[in-house]
């Protein structure tokens, strides 16, 4: 008696956007990456235990070798003047490129007119630009950029933003539609499709997934030194292309690894 009523309510379903093949491919890639990681961990564990045995066998009066100096490759995001801001932006570009290639083997930066307004040249990674320090009523500073990405024929736009957090009590900005535009925070307070969790580096992250029609945007944010938020997001492009219609080419897990890697390179 009830089912016809429900079927009437459901009506004619629209075409499905569930891409089972893409889900399986993504899971298989994730498993391969995890297996490689476990194999490496096992090698490291054996090496560490061998090292431990060696140190126990050594006589107490034998001098130990001095540890090699650790080179700190981290950098600061400084935007006090144009020169330092551009230097910081270049370092952020390099850090992102390294993190993307590490988290997403096989990704490329193609040249196509996608969602980006400034498509980069073929093969060139994201070029971060600096918004510098605003003046007067708008004291936020930011670094950001967008680049086309492609993975397994699926195309998307990868975006990075590092923006200073507003001082407490600062009123929300007003967007072009006249509505309040809440700041970018590392919380789900003003967000939809949002989830708070801990990233691969043990720090708090928020993951936000939003959709408009066949377009989906995935974003991961974390806080970085100097009271800033780092956001890396990816959206699919050209939903008329069947390879793109399902979802962006990068997963939220990959974005979380990228964010963790980049944020680990930034120091106070």
């Amino acid at each position: 008696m009830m089912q016809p009523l429900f079927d009437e309510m459901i009506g004619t379903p629209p075409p499905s956007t569930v891409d089972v093949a893409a889900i399986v491919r993504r899971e298989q890639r994730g498993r391969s990456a995890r297996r490689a990681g476990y194999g490496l961990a096992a090698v490291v564990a054996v090496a560490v235990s061998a090292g431990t045995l060696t140190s126990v066998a050594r006589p107490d009066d034998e001098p130990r070798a001095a540890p090699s100096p650790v080179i700190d490759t981290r950098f600061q995001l400084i935007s006090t003047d144009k020169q330092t801001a551009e230097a910081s932006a270049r370092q952020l570009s390099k850090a992102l490129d390294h993190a993307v290639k590490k988290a997403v083997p096989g990704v490329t930066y193609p040249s196509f007119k996608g969602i980006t307004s400034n498509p980069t040249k073929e093969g060139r990674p994201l070029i971060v630009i600096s918004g510098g320090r605003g003046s007067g009523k708008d004291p936020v500073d930011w670094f950001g950029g967008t680049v086309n990405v492609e993975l397994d024929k699926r195309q998307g736009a990868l975006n990075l933003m590092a923006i200073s957090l507003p001082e407490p009590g600062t009123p929300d900005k007003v967007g072009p539609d006249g509505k309040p535009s809440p700041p970018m925070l590392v919380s789900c307070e003003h967000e939809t499709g949002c989830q708070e969790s801990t990233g691969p580096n043990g720090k708090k992250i928020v993951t936000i997934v939003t959709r408009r029609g066949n377009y989906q945007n995935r974003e991961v944010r974390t806080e970085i030194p100097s009271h800033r938020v780092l956001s890396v997001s990816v959206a699919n492009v050209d939903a008329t292309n069947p390879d793109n219609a399902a979802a962006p080419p990068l997963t939220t897990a990959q974005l979380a690894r990228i964010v963790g890697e980049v944020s680990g390179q930034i120091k106070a």
Partner: protein
Amino acid sequence: MRKTDEADFHAYVSSRLDRWRRGAYLLCQDWHLADDLVSITVTRLYRSWAKASRADNRDAYAQKVLTRSWLTERGRVWRRREQIFAEPPERAWTPPLEEVADRESLAALLKSLGPRQRAVVVLRFYLDYSVEETAAILKVSPGTVKSQSARGLETLRAAALLS
């Protein structure tokens, strides 16, 4: 996963996809969210296929994954917000006009139910799970299923009589 298991997985999922989408739509009344829920379900099923394929009732296992994913997300206040992306025209899906009035009234009735009560109604009266199966899917007692479905059923029967 072995090739035979993978073939089994694909065959199972493709035969159930429509039912999962319809059930998910009844829970959240949004096709985009429904497809997201089904995608999450397919992902989790793939990861635990060794266990799922050996379950006494694969359908109940899969439905448990889907329903609990929705209840978890619903608990986090998973709302939609407009975001501005660049371009291309969105091909909006619009339902046939003659369906709108009936769909809206039943949709409003379902929406008036709390998330768990709505899940009970969908599982019991659309997907046809027993009280015990519904209780296992939702991890509640059979008594809770009975009491939570009573009010919902009363409301829907009234709607059925009027339609």
